[in-house]
């Protein structure tokens, strides 16, 4: 309250409407979030192990029982430090150069699994999407959990 205020008002008088506004603003999103979870086509799954569309885990890859083409979508430094055996590097930093290597190794019908660092990265989804566009093939998947999942499952 400023000294000399021309419209004095008891301090408590303004509290209730503000609290009501805060409560409404905090509660309304609960219902809208619930509606999003139920109705949004791209709502994230509640279970950590759920696979989103286009994602696979190591169990799925093993069940294919065929040689897949692993694509590492991380940075060159990360790739050179360690990568899935036989994986080729393909990231958006040097897309045009690295894409040649991909087409040297890939043929229509060969399944491709792209991975990045962990579940919290997005590069594998972006690379997989671009590969689907480049090849016109849908057999291009993302490894759920990325490099961390592979390392925990294999090492």
């Amino acid at each position, binding site marked *: 309250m400023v000294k000399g205020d021309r419209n004095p008002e008891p301090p408590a008088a303004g509290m209730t409407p503000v609290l009501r506004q805060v409560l409404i603003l905090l509660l309304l999103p609960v219902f809208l979030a619930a509606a999003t979870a139920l109705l949004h086509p791209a709502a994230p799954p509640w279970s950590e192990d759920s696979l989103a569309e286009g994602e696979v885990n190591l169990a799925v890859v093993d069940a294919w029982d065929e040689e897949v083409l692993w694509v590492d979508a991380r940075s060159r430094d990360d790739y050179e430090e360690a990568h899935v055996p036989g994986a080729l590097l393909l990231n958006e930093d040097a897309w045009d150069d690295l894409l040649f290597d991909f087409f040297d190794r890939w043929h229509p019908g060969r399944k491709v699994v792209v991975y990045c660092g962990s*579940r919290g990265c997005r590069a594998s989804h972006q690379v997989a999407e671009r590969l689907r566009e480049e090849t016109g093939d849908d057999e291009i998947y993302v490894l759920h959990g990325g490099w961390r999942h592979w390392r925990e499952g294999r090492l």
Partner: protein
Amino acid sequence: MIIAIQWALRFVLGGVFVYAGAVKIVDPAQFLVDIESYRLVPYTVAVATALYLPWLELLAGAALWVGRGYRGALVILLPLTVLFGILITSAWIRGLDISCGCFGVTDASETNYPWLLGRDLLILAGLGVLAAFEWTRRGGGRASGTGRSVAP
């Protein structure tokens, strides 16, 4: 002059939060990835946040525009913006590579922490000015519409 500043801040900051909320509502899965990159909360909490927070931002931002629920929006957005600043700082200290998640997939910044933090502080300053106008009544009228105009 004060009225102009007040309206400009309401328009810009309201727009910032409406936009930030809207792009995340469109792609909650991407926002989840962004939340997870901070490595602070369990997966289920991250999912709940990805679904809830964008709506809160959108509604509070809209309240800044329309005036209804205006004070409540300020009470929510001020600490929320402080929290965002703390989270960004925490990620910076831990050397994490994050896309801050502030404005969904259109946010192309690659962990430019000074920029992320500076932007957050600018928003915080703007909200602080609006709150000062509102609660000290130096502004061009009570934007909440619950009282008399106090313009000189």
